[in-house]
């Protein structure tokens, strides 16, 4: 598959890295040679130092037989232009990174398709959604809804109060239990568990379940004492902060702390009255105390600096904030941040990349989510007529190790899967797999 990526920024390079490990033909374009040098020497891909909006350059790089053209430059309008050019020069599919909520509205989708932009990706919006999902339920580390909430993935950290510690999974109540444990994250390692695995203290456990059993999961995880989030403090008035405060539910009171005065004034135009803008440094503990960090339920650090975000979250935890979220753009720091007990780690690049990654999957995938610190992929497959998975019950399928089925959605109803379940065509199946094994999983569904 030939993929051209325009723009070697954070999202572009991460995506190139991800895809080249997948043995795809990647061409990375950027006008800045210094950005390309590192990529060229470390990864198996081709770099072109030229503008992705130049017709001649696009022709020379062979856009006419490209399967996918991805424009992830910082400027929205350049991305749109590049995609329109690419489509008209013969690219099969195009993706543009945007920075405007209006463009994402479903009614505008066909309009952009007509212009030659097939898919739009808005990394800040995706990250903001993840942040709001994370703070809405303070006891949850990861929250993901499949098919509008029919099936839910919940990740939570085991504390001393949890009821399911040190018991082999097959003893956890036989087949009557209303949840399925799809992954366990222990230290730096991710386990797709089997019946004889046990859950240990400080593990992060990922459950799939339906909405009505969420309180049950909360009970067995020993998290019933966690408060509901009302007061939220965001450090750093980035674009993600703006999106998150717009996306947050009505009952949340948000304070954004931003050190740049001009940016503060700009922020007042972007947010509404439920958000208060504070001009100051979020690392100043006196300021945080003045602004009531003691009464804050969630602290979100979104400055451009990963180290600052991690340390600020640690400080906030010390001062008694129940839930902290840190934006960590340095991928190597993610597992460290996790082990330092920072609630949720957000990485814009990985979120964006996983969304783009979904677009190249051959199967009819509607949702792929990259579990940022679990090194696992979650995919939702729509089962096609006559695919291999429909032939036998699951226990006889011989699914490879590292792949598990979290549940399925049949006629809009979420249900859990046991060994005897027969999967039918038309079902939406939620699959968990390690690393990039999603390609293998795909074969079962086509």
């Amino acid at each position, binding site marked *: 598959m030939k993929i051209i990526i325009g723009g070697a920024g954070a999202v572009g390079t991460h995506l190139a890295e991800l895809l080249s490990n997948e043995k795809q033909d990647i061409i990375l374009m950027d006008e800045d040679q210094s950005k390309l040098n590192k990529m060229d020497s470390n990864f198996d891909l081709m770099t072109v130092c030229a503008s992705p909006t130049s017709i001649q350059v696009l022709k020379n790089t062979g856009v006419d037989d490209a399967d996918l053209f991805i424009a992830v430059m910082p400027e929205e309008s350049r991305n749109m232009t590049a995609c329109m050019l690419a489509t008209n020069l013969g690219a099969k599919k195009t993706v543009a990174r945007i920075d405007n909520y209006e463009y994402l509205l479903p009614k505008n989708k066909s309009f952009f398709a007509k212009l030659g932009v097939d898919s739009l990706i808005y990394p800040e919006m995706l990250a903001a959604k993840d942040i709001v999902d994370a703070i809405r339920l303070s006891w949850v580390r990861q929250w993901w809804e499949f098919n509008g909430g029919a099936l839910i993935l919940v990740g939570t950290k085991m504390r001393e109060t949890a009821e399911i510690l040190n018991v082999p999974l097959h003893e956890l109540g036989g087949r009557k239990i209303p949840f399925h444990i799809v992954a366990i994250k222990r230290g730096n390692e991710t386990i797709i568990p089997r019946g004889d695995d046990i859950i240990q203290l400080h593990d992060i456990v990922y459950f799939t379940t339906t909405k009505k059993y969420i309180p049950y999961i909360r009970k067995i995880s020993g998290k019933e004492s966690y408060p509901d989030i009302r007061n939220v403090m965001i450090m750093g008035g980035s674009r993600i902060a703006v999106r998150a405060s717009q996306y947050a539910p009505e009952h949340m009171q948000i304070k954004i702390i931003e050190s740049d*005065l001009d940016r*503060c*004034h700009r*922020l*007042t*135009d972007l947010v*509404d*009255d439920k958000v*208060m*803008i*504070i*001009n*100051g440094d979020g690392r100043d503990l006196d*300021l945080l105390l*003045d*602004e009531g960090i003691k009464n804050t339920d969630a602290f979100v650090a979104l400055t451009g600096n990963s180290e600052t975000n991690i340390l600020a979250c640690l400080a906030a935890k010390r001062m008694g904030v129940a839930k902290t979220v840190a934006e960590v753009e340095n991928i190597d720091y993610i597992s460290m941040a996790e082990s330092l007990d920072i609630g949720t780690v957000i990485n814009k690049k990985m979120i964006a990349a996983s969304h783009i990654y979904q677009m190249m999957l051959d199967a009819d995938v509607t949702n792929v989510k990259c579990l940022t610190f679990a090194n696992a992929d979650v995919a939702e497959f729509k089962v096609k007529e006559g695919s291999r998975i429909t032939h036998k019950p699951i226990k006889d399928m011989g699914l490879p190790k590292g792949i598990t089925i979290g549940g399925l959605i049949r006629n809009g109803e979420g249900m859990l899967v046991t060994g005897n379940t027969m999967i039918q065509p038309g079902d939406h199946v939620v699959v968990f797999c390690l690393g990039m094994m999603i390609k293998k999983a795909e074969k079962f569904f086509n």
Partner: protein
Amino acid sequence: MINWKMIAKIMGLLLFIETGFLTLCTLMSFYYQEPDFSAFIISTSITALVGIPLTHAGKAAERKLSRRDGYIVVTFAWIIFSLFGMLPYYISGYIPNITNAYFETMSGFSTTGASILDNIEELPHGLLFWRSMTQWIGGMGIVIFTIAVLPIFGVGGIQLFAAEATGPKFDKITPRIDVTAKWIWTIYFGLTLAETILLLAGDMPLFDSICHAMTTTATGGFSTKQASIAAFNSPYIEYVITTFMFLSGINFSLLYLLFLKGSFKRIFKDTEIIWYIKTVALFTIIITIGLLLTSPMGLEEAFRRSSFLVVSIQTTCGFITADYMQWAPALWMLTTVITYCGACAGSTSGGIKCIRAVIMARIAKNEFKQIVHPNAILPVRVNGVSVSPTTKSTVLAFFVVFALLVFFGWFSMMVIGLDFDDAYSVIISSLANVGPGIGKCGPAFSWNALPDVAKWFSIVYMLIGRLELFTVLLLLTPAFWRKR
């Protein structure tokens, strides 16, 4: 340099426009065959004869208006319009005193609605019609009218428009200023026509219907009857006039969206309108309850009287259906409070305007918040957009100037010899262009009893108030006349 030649030319053209209006009244007078006919003929001729040399003087003028020229044009347009507008009253002998005649005319053009006439019914139809017409022209603005009909201002038009329009800012509804002015006048005309028809349906005579429709939509308040609207003694007419006073208090750009684009959503999302509706409702409820408790009125009558009064005072119209001085003192005291608030910017009403009240209230609220959160950046939002610091300081300056003018005027009136409450009510009523006040200037009396000096004072205040303080006061600052 001030372009006096161009200013003279514009003044001349404005006089021709006034001649046009006067001719209309002359025809009216001719139709009724009344004694003011000759006075109208003379006034019309004088106005035209002065207009000719003025336009001639500006023949070779450079077609360019600076910002300063704009302020001079607007202020002088109103002074000169009133000067020639008083001729029919004076020449016909119905108002034989120059002070009184000028007062009546300025009260008309500035849509104040205070009158020095003690027996309005004795005036012939022609003069009554001219009296209502002055308010109708003044309501939306002499200059805005001129922009709508004559393309004479060229590039300077926008400056003039802004100088005459009410409120801290005005929204253009079309890209071109003359088209905007035309639409605003179309809506204005449409409202007047609609009200005339509805009043006719309530068995008001045609002549009275037209006159009242003109002074309602202008939120002026001149009636053809000494007893104002109370003379008709009809709940239907009172409700119709209440409705149209209320509509005329809404921003005309929003009325344009409502009537011509059918966009209801914008209307009910507009911060200012919501405040306007809320304040009207609040004061109506308070006064209705007050009347129920302190007077023998039934619920319907109390509601009708109070809603009419509140809308009439808040839009600074000044029509009267009841002598509120007979009510409990706390209720008529409220009328002076309502005066401060005023209706929407961009309407025909006077006073401080809701939008400024909203901005000031939010600035005050933020001050309290700021004490608790010293580092917070607290925006003042109107319609979801934060107000720029310049607008904020303009609004505060407006209020300070307004308050200073009130205190200065109050003091001066007392020096002239007025009582404490009369002095206050004359000043606030003139500055906010309301009309009736309290005490001896209350709804049951005319302002004829005031000394001449007090009347001139009041005239100046009406003009300052109508042109939103700064336009007139600017001409009194030395910096304006300095040649740099």
